[in-house]
């Protein structure tokens, strides 16, 4: 950076993202809406004709819809890791990254939440999975992992949304102060009367800490619960205790990839290179190495145990995945999730090619979901009608992210300002140089 960053500069730089969008944005939006439109048409076809058009075949009853669900819930985890866990650890490079990461969480959960409904045979009765006081006194089956999913994901969604909007409050207040007309009113609503007084700040940071703590627990618990959809079944290949830590590690892994995949074009598009520096991206990449190694270890345990047990069904299940019809997906998964992130060990890679690798890891994760979750891949026929689901999910997610990028600050103003040296009231420079931290 040429001139030292001031609060005003931060405000200006980071709020320019809220200006009227250019052609590229509208082009992206148009493509996105087109894909989404197609997806809605496809879903309507499925609703009226029957789930049979989705190409799922007996005995493999869960296919791309469920793997998509798991994938998107997983994506959400990394956002919460960054925004909540790294907050508790007071990690220094967190602030510019966390807002987009948390947005990824919220939108990923919104995306994931669609799929349990889409994959139902009779989705108009989806509310029967919710614990409402039904006339006949019939509650949900609390023993079912799908119900645990409902609780876990809804809890996660609730906490994440609250956390997200809470974190936005001081930034939205700045936007409110600079806005006019109906925008000012909306930002005003979101800002909830924020004035930036000491008292408000004290209460605010307490609340923020509380939500961060709540969300931290959820990072581990939610995807563990989702993994139990599979682990609680008796199917060979699914019924394994490694699933909870495996899924959580994988979730964070793919979530980091998603965050990287979004931040890198974002910083170019909005010219935020000063805020989202190569150092930040490097840190994210390094985290990816760690999670990649954990995921690699989990694969080794999962498949190694299958061999070690000597159970013919387990071994057959593994062999089908590694050498059968969908072997390409299996090996793509291993390559993308374990081997590719090891590229980040090289400093140049960390600082210059993270985008490509991020995408790779992302898609590796998707392939993982498809390949790894099918006990009998010979029977699986992923047919055309299911691919709208994948594109639909991407389109829906991306739509919300696009809208977010233009309506809310993508980098957290107040947290970035916290990193800056505190300015003197007379405006003649900082009180002291050095690391962030408020002076008493």
């Amino acid at each position, binding site marked *: 950076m040429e001139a030292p960053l001031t609060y005003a500069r931060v405000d200006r730089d980071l709020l320019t993202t809220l200006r009227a969008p250019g052609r590229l944005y509208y082009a992206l939006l148009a493509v996105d809406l087109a894909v989404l439109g197609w997806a809605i048409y496809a879903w309507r076809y499925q609703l009226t004709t*029957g*789930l049979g058009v989705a190409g799922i075949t007996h005995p493999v009853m869960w296919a791309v819809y469920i793997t998509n669900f798991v994938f998107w819930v997983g994506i959400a985890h990394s956002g919460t890791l960054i925004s909540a866990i790294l907050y508790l650890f007071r990690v220094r490079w967190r602030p510019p990254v966390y807002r987009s990461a948390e947005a990824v969480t919220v939108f990923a959960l919104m995306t994931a939440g669609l799929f349990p409904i889409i994959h139902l045979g009779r989705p108009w009765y989806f509310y*029967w999975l919710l614990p409402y006081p039904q006339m006949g006194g019939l509650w949900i*089956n609390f023993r079912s992992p799908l119900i645990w999913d409902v609780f876990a994901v809804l809890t996660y969604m609730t906490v994440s949304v609250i956390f997200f909007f809470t974190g936005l409050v001081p930034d939205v207040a700045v936007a409110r102060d600079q806005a006019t007309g109906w925008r000012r009113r909306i930002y005003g609503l979101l800002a909830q009367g924020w004035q930036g007084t000491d008292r408000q700040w004290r209460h605010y940071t307490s609340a923020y800490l509380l939500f961060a703590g709540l969300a931290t627990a959820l990072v581990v618990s939610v995807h563990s619960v989702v993994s139990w959809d599979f682990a609680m079944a*008796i199917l060979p290949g699914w019924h394994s205790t490694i699933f909870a830590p495996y899924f959580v590690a994988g979730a964070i892994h793919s979530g980091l990839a998603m965050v990287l995949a979004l931040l890198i074009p974002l910083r170019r598009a909005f010219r935020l290179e000063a805020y989202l520096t190569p150092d930040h991206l490097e840190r994210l990449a390094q985290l990816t190495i760690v999670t990649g190694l954990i995921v690699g270890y989990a694969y080794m345990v999962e498949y190694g145990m299958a061999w070690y047990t000597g159970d013919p069904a387990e071994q057959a299940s593994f062999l089908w995945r590694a050498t059968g019809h969908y072997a390409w997906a299996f090996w793509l998964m291993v390559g993308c999730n374990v081997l590719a992130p090891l590229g980040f060990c090289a400093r140049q890679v960390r600082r210059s090619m993270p985008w490509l690798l991020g995408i790779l890891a992302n898609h590796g994760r998707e392939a993982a979901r498809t390949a790894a979750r099918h006990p009998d891949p010979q029977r699986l026929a992923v047919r055309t009608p299911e691919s709208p689901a994948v594109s639909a999910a991407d389109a829906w997610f991306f739509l919300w992210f696009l809208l977010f990028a233009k309506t809310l600050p993508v980098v957290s103003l107040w947290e970035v300002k916290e990193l800056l040296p505190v300015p003197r009231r007379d405006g003649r420079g900082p009180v002291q140089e050095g690391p962030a931290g408020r002076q008493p």
Partner: protein
Amino acid sequence: MNVTRRDFLKVLGTGAAASVTGCSAPLPDKLIPLVIPAEEVIPGEATWYATVCRECPAGCGMLVRTREGRAVKVEGNPDHPVNQGRLCARGQAAVQGLYNPDRIRQPLRRSGTGTLEPVSWEEAEQLLAGHVARLQAEGRPGRVAVVAPLVTGSLAQLIETWSQAVGGRPPLFVEPLAAHALRAANRLSFGLDAIPSYQIETLELLVSFSTDFLETWLSPVELARQFAAMRAPRAGRMGRFVYLGPRLSMTATNADEWLPLRPGTEGLAALGMVHLILSEGLGAGVPAEEAGRLRQLVAAYTPEAVERRTGLPARDLTRLARSLAQARPGLALGGGTVGTTRSATTTQVAVNLLNYVAGHVGRAIQFGPTSALGRAATYQELLGLVQAMARGEIDLLLLAGVNPLFSLPPAAGFQQALAKVPFVISTASFPDETAAHAHLVLPESTPLESWGDHTPWDGVHGLMQPATTPLYQTKPLGDVLLSVARRVGGAMAARLPWATFYDALRDRWRELQRRLAPATPFETFWAEALRRGGVWEAIPPKRVRLSPAVFRTTFVEPALSGSQDDPFVLLVYPSIFRYDGRGANRPWLQELPDPVTGMTWESWVEVNPQDARRLGITQGDLVALRSPHGQVELPAYLYAGVQPGVVAVPLGQGHTRYGRYAQGRGANPLALLPAEPEAPSGALPWLATRVRLTRTGRRQPLAIVGGSERQEGRGIAQSISLADLLRDHGAGGAARPGAAKDGADGHKAPPLYPPHPHPVHRWGMAIDLNACNGCGACVAACYAENNIPVVGKEQVAKGRVMSWIRIERFIEGPAERPETRFLPMLCQHCDNAPCEPVCPVYATYHNPEGLNAQVYNRCVGTRYCSNNCPYKVRRFNWFTHKWPEPLHLQLNPDVTVREMGVMEKCTFCVQRIKGGQARAKAEGRKLRDGEIVPACAQSCPAQAIVFGDLKDPQSEVARLARDPRGYRVLEELNTLPAITYLRKVQPGPLGS
């Protein structure tokens, strides 16, 4: 559900409409149309009618369950001596003939433009009568010919009298699979022009020469029951079964040993065995002089010579011959369709001789009651008529429900000959190939809508009555003939004075009553016969002697058309479901997977894998088969059960008409066969030609149901040797320690949860793998009872077949000589069901009577239950399936019709359980064991499935659950199923 209510109203409306439009005479408009007005008809309660199944010549007795005037299910008649309450899949599909959407609904006449136009019965009959009268007036009544299927009793009599009254040729009663060679051989061997009955229940050894008696031969339901009884281990013994032939058919897979033979050499093998028996002096009851002459006759057939010509190793032949001679009793069966060569008669004479020298004639073979099949017109006689037609000698041809354009080889020239007949009438109920060429179509009512009788065996007089008013403007054949006779008038009308066929039927039964029960008033006799389904007489067996003609027999190896360039011998075999093709328009019979290949909606050519590899053919490749007589294209199916150098094609597909389910599927192998009949018998030689195979380069997607053939050590279909069974458990079969009890068995750790309390009943089943022969009758019955949709070929190919019970076929050992085990797999109603805890909405739960209940209207379709079911018996409704009208009339009103998104599975026929409980409660008594029978158990011809209350220690099922042969499938998963399977018993090698 609203679907059921709507359908109920629709049905009532249709029922009312049918009663109005039924016949030419206007019927009173009643809400509940009935043919016999009953005093107590309660909507919601079924009325049962006894009749006879006419889906094949076996003539099993049938009970038709009707609700609100419509037939919804058919079952076997327990009183009928042939099937004793059981019914095969073809019988179950009879309702799909009645409600077939492609039925011809009114008479049709060929117009000037060549199309078939609807016409009234009045006009149609007048037209026919006019033709007949004209021919009589012109003094050329001999130019009238009638061809009918093999009917017996009153209708046969009527047709004969009618033909005589017309002055036409004697009518031909044809049946394509009538075992003519068997009859001719009996004439030659024993001087009896008949097909005997066989008693196989008590046999020690049964040997079959290419005779598929469990599938389509003679009386499959009867023989299946007897076969299962023969195989049951009793007092340390069980009957053995050896099959000789070139193809491992479904019947052969039930054998202890399959001894492959070169095609067409069954007779030689039999002669070799005769030679051995005589040369070793094992021919017990044969008089010395006869033995000497027989020895001379078979002198050339030493075991070594036979081995050279048949491929049967001499030591196997020796072993088998000795065992057959020593068996008390034993039987050699021959005369099956697939082995009918140009030497079929002498082949069968050889088998007769084998039975004779081994001493089994008069014991296992009884010439007292003979089969109606022995009275069918031969193929040669029919060919004679075809030739007469070709010569222009026939002016009026009445084809009464036969389809020669499909069931005769094209080489016979029927189509060309038909063109020479100026007036062709067909009485087909369905638009088949022959009806498409007729000038006048007078559609017959289906057997379920008609009066009649059928005598499949001497002394078994089955009585048929309509179970429902005719759906359309169709008339029974008998009524049509009488009506036409009346219109012709004169002497003809005088000879046929009855107003309707019903009257003719009753008159004939008056004769029966006079003979069998002279003291009983006729109306009582008649009512009792209607209730029981017929009257049965005991026919004493005849003494049988060897006829001198047999010694003049010259045995020749059968000739085959084709040259050196035709490397494969063609085997044509009747399909267990489609028979000779008549069942191809019933959707269940298309969707049921073939027991051996698992194929649906298709026909195919079976090629040995070695041959396939050599020719570069993979499964699904479309190959062209060419014989000197014709060519067809079929997809290839690789099967180690056909010998190298042999290809096999099932009969029954290849229809060019016959409705939406039959049309355009597979190919008719008759196109490859020659026209010449086999000389002494006049039979059509099915095994008569060689063919060449060429790849067309195209492929055909195949819809095969079934997973892996191999168990891979999972112990799903288990067997036990007879020796082990005796050693471990003694002949009486005491329970072994730790043997299956109701509930946890052999598990070391106690379960986490307390067991389900079953306060009153716990429903369970026992399935005997030793009895199950893979026929699929249970599957068809389940389809009928539980409104299971037919999904069609494309969906079957995606694994979405909806059957709640399936027959799993596993093989052990080498694929060339496999040991086959059939296992009916259905919902096990586990006490510790994996599907129950995972359903988020409680759509599946464990009910207090032990059933795993599926609540359709609660299911949201997450499909977790199906994922978690280790038996994979749960079926998901991927679509809302439709039943094209009027097939929806067959729907059982006691069972919900499911919509898309809902999971379904076997319910142990909970509607029958509830019905039985309601009945018992209304009558103020407890349920009796055996009172509630699910559809599968009810229909199984082998009586392999037993259902009952596991909590009742006296019940059959509880006793079987304690049987030493009992085990549970996938027991190690601790699902605690309610179904006990009884291990298949291996008797061990012959001679042990």
